[in-house]
């Protein structure tokens, strides 16, 4: 459950304030599939970074699963990300010196997961994205689609509740992009909250809910799941 209330984010560029998000309210229920769309500079990425606890709002409150995370310090935010958030990036962000397996293992190493358990979970995560045979390949030996699937395996291996994807198909051809979308959606179907920032209308149409941003404000919010208790 994600609850943003009165969120603003102001950057200072060259001494002048730039309002990336303005007084934004947003609630995302567990298990929702949300597409965030809008023109460049509309605040999509900033919103995603705030949702992922990579950034802190200038003002407003952010409750994640009932806990206020807006005021947490860096180390506490790290732990929130570790356990509750999975990230998928447009440029994959795989560590080039590590194999697919090691990339997926990375978050568990720093989370202190025990070695044997790590191997088992890596195996399951790679199997889930259909890359068990590619486990020992380095990123430069994988296709773009495969790289993004490794990245998705890495994003979910810690068992987060929320998967945040920033233009996950932006660097992929149509076919492998479709594979990735299908994969993400299947994970959503298994209960994972999925928030995708995208320019791709195909994804937007798939999503249960579409949010359109413009100039730091939500200008359109379609398909919002009815909250319990509201008529």
């Amino acid at each position, binding site marked *: 459950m994600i609850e943003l209330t009165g969120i603003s984010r102001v950057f200072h560029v060259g001494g002048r304030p730039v309002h990336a998000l303005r007084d934004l309210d947003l609630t995302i229920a567990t298990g929702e599939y949300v597409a965030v769309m809008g023109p460049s500079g509309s605040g999509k990425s900033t919103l995603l970074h705030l949702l992922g606890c*990579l950034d802190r709002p200038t003002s407003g409150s952010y409750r994640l699963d009932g806990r206020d995370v807006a005021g947490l310090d860096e180390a506490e935010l790290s732990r929130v*990300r*570790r*356990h509750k958030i999975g990230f998928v990036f447009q440029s994959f*962000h795989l*560590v*080039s010196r590590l194999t697919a397996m090691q990339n997926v293992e*990375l978050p568990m190493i720093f989370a202190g997961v025990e070695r044997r358990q790590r191997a088992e979970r890596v195996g399951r995560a790679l199997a889930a994205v259909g890359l068990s045979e590619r486990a020992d390949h380095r990123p430069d030996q994988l296709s773009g689609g495969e790289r993004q699937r490794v990245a998705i395996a890495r994003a979910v291996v810690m068992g987060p509740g929320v998967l945040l994807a920033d233009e996950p198909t932006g660097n992929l051809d149509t076919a492998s992009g479709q594979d990735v979308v299908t994969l993400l959606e299947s994970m959503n179907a298994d209960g994972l909250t999925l928030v995708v920032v995208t320019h791709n209308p195909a994804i937007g149409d798939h999503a249960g809910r579409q949010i359109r941003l413009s100039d730091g404000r939500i200008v359109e919010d379609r398909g919002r799941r009815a909250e319990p208790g509201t008529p």
Partner: protein
Amino acid sequence: MSAYDLLGFAAGALRGHRLRTMLSILGVSIGVASVIVLTALGEGALVFVTREFSSLGSNLLFVIPGKTETTGMAPIGGVANDLTLEDADAIRRVRGVRHVAPLTMGEARARAGDRSRDVTVAGTTVDLRELRSIRMQAGRYLPGGDLGRAPRVCVLGAEIRRELFPDTNPLGEIIKIGDERFRVIGVSEPRGMSVGMDLDELIHIPVVRAMKLFDQTSLFRIMIQVSSHEDLEAVKAGVREVLLERHDGEEDVTLWTQDSILTALDRVLTALTLALGGIAAVSLTVAGVGIMNVMLVSVSERTPEVGLLKALGVTPAQVLAAFLVEASILSTSGGLAGLAGGFAIVRVFTRLYPVFPAAPPAWAVVGSLGLSMAIGILFGAFPARRASRLDPVQALATRY
């Protein structure tokens, strides 16, 4: 996360840049190796010199004219009294004294037939033979008896004999030293350098003859051998008293024991070793700057990776630790490689010069290894801190 995993991650990152990693390890190892080698040489010099002096025997006392112990300035009250043969005779009567050898030194030209060379001439008495354990190769040493009527005889060092009488028996031959003629009565056994005095390159003549030859009124040294080491201090006091009385109450000689010479030498050479080690430690510090440079490059090159790690939930403290461990791996492996290299060089050196017992002192080994590790932490801290403080959003957006 476990220390083992942290180490594995850091080592993996270093393996990603083999050349850079090897070069910074090389930098540290040169630093450590130079500490090892230089202090080994200093320590070797100390042992070498100590051993040389000990070969003299531990129960020696030297009387040197002039008071040089207290100040470096000329003795107050004008010229000091001469140190004379009569002084040496008087010392002979001090309790606990076994041998007293007066010594005077000079340079002169020695000629035998058509051969000649410059030599160092030592004027002394038969006692020197006992004092320095001089063995004869041929003939005999200087005669004892009344010093005043000493004959014009001489004893040649082995090397002098080889040069002046390469093919003939020198015994009984006449050589000219300066303008005076001396009969050769003996040749000493080859012995080599000993305490800055090469006995092989020395001609011994009776001390009275030498003082006349070089027109000297004062002895260069009086060497005293004490019956036993325990008597040394008592004899020293006795000798001082005798000389004080003979020199009208003026304390114008310096009494040196083997111990005081050794202590002084030990102090000088230890300081030298420390200085050498210190100079070498500077190169270790330079290597530390090298590590800092490499780590800074690594951090900026891997900015996107740091961003990713943070997105994955790695805490700033863990990022700091990962980079610190990387720097420590560099410096510690450099330290170990340097130790190995340093010991190898010292080993080669001792093979080449077996008389010189070069060995690094324990403090240099422990210190240089410890310093190299500390340098990794010290110089790795700034880059690691920089990495840990990177803003994740900006780091992720960085293109490399």
